[in-house]
């Protein structure tokens, strides 16, 4: 317990979390601080490229094994099944109707790549290695949850609009293409490729992550203000409980797959995080009647800050305790 608290305290005063806190505080204080839209986009492209590339290099270095395929399957299964748990919990813990509960549930099966990036940064700082292919697992976990959410809605006989265009947008959204593409480049070029560009994608990584999280803090803070009336106590409690349950499911899956401690932490983080980029866009097309203030505020204003500040240290401590790493 003392270790967990020490780890959480270290995490809370890290430049990454403090940058997020600065953005959050500025937004809540109604400061006019903002990161230009194009700059924020460039920062996210950099982070996705760097994390994908480094994952690919790691796989090139250690080789492909059966565990990679099984981990992908495990990730897909988690993404598809976690929305069912989230839906059941939401219906028990809040007065949310079926449509909104299904839309929220879809977000909690999918992932937040920024939370994943923050977790890899914490692992690096702690000197804990993780399987490089977890980047590919992250990409595989984006979409299945959307299907589960739409299935939950269709059971209630509401119309969900799904067309081939939407499928293309979900499967080929910019984040997934960049992440998988950079992963493949890293895999093909290997450690030599990393050596060539390490001064660009390794050394500045944490500084760029700080700036990106400053922007995320601003977005989360403004989202909290905007969605203040949209959530009841039950929904907020769900936003704090669901990551812990998702992480537990992730840990059990990691143990079944025989992942390393670092791999387990990353799978827990992926299972605990909620989407705020790919799934909201898909929900606006497929379920336009669902209220975006509910799912965006929960995902970005409640679960994301929780995971970033307390969640990741908890997942790290739990994984270390269980795997003995």
């Amino acid at each position: 317990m003392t270790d967990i608290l020490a780890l959480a305290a270290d995490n809370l005063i890290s430049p990454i979390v403090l940058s997020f806190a600065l953005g959050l505080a500025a937004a809540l204080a109604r400061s006019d601080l903002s990161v230009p839209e194009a700059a924020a986009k460039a920062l996210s492209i950099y982070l996705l490229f760097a994390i994908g590339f480094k994952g690919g290099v790691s796989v090139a270095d250690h080789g492909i094994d059966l565990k990679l395929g099984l981990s992908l399957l495990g990730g897909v299964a988690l993404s598809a099944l976690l929305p069912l748990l989230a839906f059941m919990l939401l219906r028990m813990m809040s007065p949310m109707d079926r449509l909104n509960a299904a839309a929220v549930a879809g977000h909690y099966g999918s992932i937040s790549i920024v939370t994943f990036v923050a977790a890899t940064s914490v692992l690096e700082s702690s000197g804990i290695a993780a399987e490089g292919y977890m980047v590919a697992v992250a990409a595989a976990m984006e979409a299945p949850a959307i299907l589960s959410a739409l299935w939950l809605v269709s059971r209630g006989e509401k119309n969900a609009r799904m067309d081939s265009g939407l499928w293309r947008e979900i499967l080929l959204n910019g984040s997934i293409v960049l992440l998988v593409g950079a992963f493949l480049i890293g895999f093909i070029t290997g450690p030599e490729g990393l050596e060539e560009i390490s001064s660009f994608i390794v050394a500045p990584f944490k500084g760029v992550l700080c700036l990106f999280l400053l922007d995320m803090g601003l977005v989360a803070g403004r989202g909290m203000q905007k969605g203040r009336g949209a959530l009841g106590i039950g929904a907020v409690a769900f936003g704090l409980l669901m990551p812990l349950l998702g992480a537990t499911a992730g840990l059990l899956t990691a143990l079944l797959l025989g992942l390393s401690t670092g791999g387990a932490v990353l799978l827990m983080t992926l299972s605990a995080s909620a989407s705020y980029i790919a799934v909201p866009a898909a929900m606006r097309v497929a379920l336009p009647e669902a209220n975006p203030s509910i799912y965006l505020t929960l995902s970005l204003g409640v679960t994301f800050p929780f995971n970033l500040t307390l969640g990741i240290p908890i997942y790290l401590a739990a994984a270390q305790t269980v795997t003995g790493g």
Partner: protein
Amino acid sequence: MQTHKAKRVEITIEQVMQTRLTRTLRGAGVTGYTVLPVRAGSGRSGEWSRSGQISRAEGMVQVVCIIRPDRLDTLLEAAFAVVERHIGVVCVTDCEVLRAERF
């Protein structure tokens, strides 16, 4: 100078629906359109601003097209099928153009 009567249709809609709408407009015989970014607004769904959006889910755009009056009903029926369930505004105004053959 000789001018010709036309209809200007402005459709403010969620960004995620832009491609679906413009594809539908082309299918309804629209020969050209302009897409404008929307910075901020307020309506039945509350206040909205482009600044601080991290997801495409909340972005809005405005699609503007000018057509011959006899094509208006076809266009509106096609557009309505796309925008019916979504946040947005459809507005039609009379206008005049110089080169009618372009519309």
